[in-house]
């Protein structure tokens, strides 16, 4: 059976992007729990940097998703 090398490359790229998203998501989960703990302890100063960093991480995840979406589109439709 012939495997299209373009398909294999595309899958590798998508798998790499997924791993990156998972790592970013783990950082975001930790960040949310740390910010919440800090807020409940009465330290409000951590809320703004927490929200900004979380937003940046979300933007990175969104960018990676768009990348995955584009690779899927390009490889499958030639």
């Amino acid at each position: 059976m012939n495997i299209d090398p373009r398909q294999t490359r595309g899958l590798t790229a998508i798998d790499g992007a997924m791993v990156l998203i998972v790592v970013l998501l783990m950082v975001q989960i930790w960040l949310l729990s740390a910010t919440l703990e800090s807020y409940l302890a009465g330290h409000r100063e951590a809320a703004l940097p927490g929200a900004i960093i979380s937003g940046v991480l979300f933007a990175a995840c969104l960018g990676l998703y768009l990348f995955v979406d584009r690779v899927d589109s390009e490889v499958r439709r030639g």
Partner: protein
Amino acid sequence: MSWFRRRSSAPLWQDEFSVYTADERYVTRRQFTKFLTLTSFAMFAGNLWILVRSWLRKPGAHSRQTVAAAGEIPVGGVKLFSYPTPEDPCILVRTGDDSYVAYSQKCTHLSCAVYYSKEQNHLECPCHQGFFSVADGSVLQGPPQRPLPRIALEHSGGQLIALGVEEEGA
């Protein structure tokens, strides 16, 4: 090169439910990535919610409330009361002839009710063995990360009056 996917000439159902195994691997990965990205957005929304709450939260302006009469409880004794609302249980401890301390009775770990152990002279949460200092409410041992919120007391006219809740960092 565009950031976005090219529109398919095939109908959506054919694009999403391909009969080809190779295509199927792409579709499932893309859908899983979408799920992860939405989870990431949920985390971001949670952080935004904390930010909004911290902006809206004002320093507590609590009412004065008589908690007990001085001498009503013996040294080493306790009295339970609610402050500032009926849903906020608190514990008053008489630690000396003329010294009283009061704390929120909700453990800062998972909100179990703490009680005073006279023998050990500390406040104890029975759920997960969290111990708090009677002197300042700080954590001595166990899973809680934060001290117990302290109730500010005033000794006036033979009465103990609660003035407010002192939270760490507030």
